[in-house]
């Protein structure tokens, strides 16, 4: 079963960390990723640049509209993601609870939806 673990935190809170604290958190994230890959729990993932750098686009009436910033202002912002390959939700929860920023923000776990040519599950 594939799940995506979306990592959210309040960017403003993370800015209050000292350089050393921030580096240590990043080291923890590197170690976490290595350990998950080693145990074949992780298919991929990436940390993201802050939402101030984000660009949002929409296609309306065939026109590409581009705006600066994230698609919505939220209290916590998407900071990274992990693509996990685990047995079930319990294992996903267990794995995601080891993601270091979970101590600061939230991790949203979503099962992937496999795209199909027909008979796609409706929302």
């Amino acid at each position, binding site marked *: 079963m594939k799940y995506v673990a979306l990592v959210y935190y309040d960017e403003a809170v993370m800015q209050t960390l000292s350089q050393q604290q921030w580096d240590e958190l990043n080291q923890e994230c590197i170690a976490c990723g290595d350990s998950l890959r080693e145990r074949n729990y992780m298919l991929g993932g990436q940390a993201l640049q802050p939402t101030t750098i984000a660009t949002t686009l929409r296609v309306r009436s065939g026109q590409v509209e581009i705006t600066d910033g994230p698609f919505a202002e939220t209290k916590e912002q998407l900071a990274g993601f992990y693509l996990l390959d685990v047995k079930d939700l*319990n294992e996903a929860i267990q794995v995601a609870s080891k993601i270091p920023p979970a101590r600061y923000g939230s991790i949203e*776990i979503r*099962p992937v939806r496999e795209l199909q040519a027909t008979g796609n599950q409706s929302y």
Partner: protein
Amino acid sequence: MNKENTLVRTEAVKNKLAAIYRDEGRRIYATLIRLLGDFELAEEALHDAFSIAMTKWQVEGIPNKPANWLVSTGRFKAIDQLRRQHRHREIVAQLASELPDQDLANDEFLLADEQLIADDQLRLIFTCCHPALDTKVQVALTLREVCGLTTEQIASAFLTSVSTMAQRIVRGKQKIRTAHIPFQLPPQAQLEERIDAVLSVIYLVYNEGYSSSAGDSVTRTELTTEAIRLARQLQSFLADKEITGLLALMLLNESRRNARINKQGDIILLAEQDRSLWNQTLIQEGIALVKSSTAGGEYGFYTLQAAIAAEHAQACNANDTNWQQVLTWYSLLLQVAPSPVIELNRAVAVAMHHGPEAALLLVEQLLQQKVMQKYHLCFATYAELLGQVGRKDEARTALKHALTLTKQAPEQRILKSKLAALSAS
């Protein structure tokens, strides 16, 4: 076979099946969920198995192990159905690979492991109370799937529409299926947390049945009965002091059921209840459970509340209560679960033990907190204490303010009668 014999046999099979459905239906259902991996499939299989049994058992007689027979038959029927519909190919392939080439009536291989089967109900409880489900969904699923109440019964007990409740149950099952919440016992490392989640569902169900002043009384009794039954079931599966504590707490509350409501349907406060109406059988069982859950000196949330309830249960009137001990339990409870409502309850015990002046100070402090400024019982208690020290005008003001804070009719009646009593004196 003559006609009369057939009739007798039909009746016997019908009675037997009704008894099995009542006593073992949920257990059979739980095992089918494990074997089929899907709530809906299992439910269909359960009904199919019982209807096949109704015709077959009349001809072949009642099998040796009827519950096992029903599980095998239900499972076989479900797989057969899936095969015919040519859907869920993967599931069919997986399930079929587990089917042995033998007579299904002798399909013992699946059912040999009695522990596995006994644990199926526990698996079902843990799945329905999975923390990834919304609390309301947990409650609805537990009552529907574990206790076997109908959606209509649950909706009526919780004063929601049937369609809302049905939707909640559907949403829960859909999440279990799509997010792959496994049908399994939690690993040892998570067991305590997961038990906590189950206990809070059971306590919610109980309180809805015990405290809610609306809804018809039959469905409410059903909720308290189911909550107690669930706790007993859980206790038979797992050794955990908080399960024992919760069971004790519910039994001790339950023991006062007949004394806590007057003829008008209004709540009678503990101090004013006719204690001869308390159910001594439940009290004795509750006290014994409290003793066992407090042995060892580690006290949990439910155990401490049960210990307080046990102190009340042992006293022949309010004055006779061991308030010193009650206060000790309250202090421990506040350490485990700090809450202004528990502090308010403790203040009442302080008033009984040390007098109203000491308690007034505590309540005045509590009233500094925003949550308590909206809580009618805080003002009601304040008024009671003010009345006891002779500050009647202030007591009246507090009661009038309490009246503005609750919309529940029985609560309003109590407050109004207190106001009247205060004005008369």
